[in-house]
């Protein structure tokens, strides 16, 4: 593979573009300067750290380390799901819903892929396991946070309708069925759009990366198709599970709508 290595000065040049954007935002009073600066800094620090971690991990292949990294990634993703909610479940419920749904979908799909499709040796080979899990978690996290946000916001806005349906003797499942369906759809839209536009409007990031790094396009395409399918399955199952659990949390055993379990994010 003929990879053209990037030097630090190359990255510094690219960073200048971001700095220019920051200056423009300051001039136009967009109020984005601080956000741009923090986000850019986080990208550099987080990616450099994970680069170091992966380097160590790839040379010392050990299941314990892979699991440890995976758990940290899951916890970070669950925290992010909660952070993106405009109305959050009180206590640890929101975190729990996100974590369990992502664990079920992302981990199951990743392990299935590693053991049967890619069949690396050993199956937890970090070079495959970590990036694959990362891709799945990232996308599932997006789907779940969008869907949960839609569910809780809609339940809040349509509380009168939901309670009216309960008054007429509908079960909690019937009373929130429309909102639940819309929420799952909301969570699935980004990945469905990505699949539809893949290759025509956009070259997916992973494939682009592989091609830039010197892989033959045909190989990169095959991996990209695999990833797309896995992400779709992971996001779909994760979103369905998160919405099912969240919708349950919105009601109690007596089928009462319990919006007191939500609090508005500061």
């Amino acid at each position, binding site marked *: 593979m003929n990879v053209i290595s990037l030097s630090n000065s190359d990255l510094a040049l690219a960073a200048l573009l971001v700095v220019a954007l920051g200056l423009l935002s300051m001039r136009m009073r967009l109020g984005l300067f601080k956000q741009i600066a923090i986000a850019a800094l986080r990208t550099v620090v987080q990616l450099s750290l994970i680069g170091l971690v992966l380097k160590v991990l790839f040379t010392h292949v050990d299941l314990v380390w892979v699991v440890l990294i995976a758990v940290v990634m899951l916890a970070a993703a669950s925290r992010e799901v909660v952070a993106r909610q405009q109305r959050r479940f009180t206590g640890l419920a929101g975190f729990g819903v996100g974590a369990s749904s992502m664990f079920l979908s992302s981990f199951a799909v990743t392990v299935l892929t590693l053991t049967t499709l890619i069949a690396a040796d050993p199956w937890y080979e970090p070079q495959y396991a970590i990036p694959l899990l990362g891709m799945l978690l990232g996308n599932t996290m997006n789907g779940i946070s969008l869907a949960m946000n839609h569910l809780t916001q809609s339940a809040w806005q349509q509380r*009168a*309708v939901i*309670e*009216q*349906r*309960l*008054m*007429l*003797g*509908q*079960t909690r499942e019937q009373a929130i069925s*429309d909102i639940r369906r819309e929420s799952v759809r909301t969570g699935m839209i980004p990945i469905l759009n990505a699949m539809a536009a893949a290759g025509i409007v956009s070259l997916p990031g992973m494939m682009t990366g592989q091609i830039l790094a010197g892989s033959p396009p045909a190989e990169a395409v095959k991996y990209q198709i695999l990833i797309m399918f896995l992400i779709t399955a992971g996001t779909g199952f994760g979103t369905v599970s998160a919405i099912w659990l969240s919708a349950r949390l919105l009601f*109690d055993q*007596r*089928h*009462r*709508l319990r919006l007191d379990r939500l609090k508005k994010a500061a």
Partner: protein
Amino acid sequence: MRKLVIQDLGYLSLGPIDLAVDSGECVCLSGPSGSGKTLMLRALADLDPHYGRVFLDGQERCTMSAPDWRRKVMLLPAESQWWAETVAEHFDSRDAKDFATLGFEPDVLSWQISRLSTGERQRLALLRMLSLSPAALLLDEPTANLDSENTKRAEKLIAGYTKRTQAAVLWVSHSREQISRVADRWLHFEPAGLQEAPLP
């Protein structure tokens, strides 16, 4: 017998309330806004967490599922809500005769919800409730948005239903005239609690 018995019911500022509404009896409730009329009806329909026991026909509420209970002891809220596009989608059984009693043409089922007036919604909400044959009615100002003619029609429909099914009725109303027409008993929310008042 469809007797509704309420024991030690309350939460927040409400109660505790003890009350029995006999089968076929209509008990009117009134009181200043914020005195707990709506809270009481919501608690009876088990829509908010609260304490106390409620029985219908001697069967305690907690022995059946909440949806089963609400199908028997049904609440008509002051402001009805609609979720589908047309009227028909909100009705399981459609008795054309009932629609006519409240002054609707047979084509009302195909009407768009978004084009209904407040009064039409209120009359349709009453019909929707009665079409589900509840055993007890919790009515929160069921005629507040109706003109006098439609108010009379609605009262007649409810009276006919109660007579036919012997349903117990709790009716929140602010109008003394209405109370004198429909009530068998009148209870007033006072700072000290629910007080029985002589019928106007």
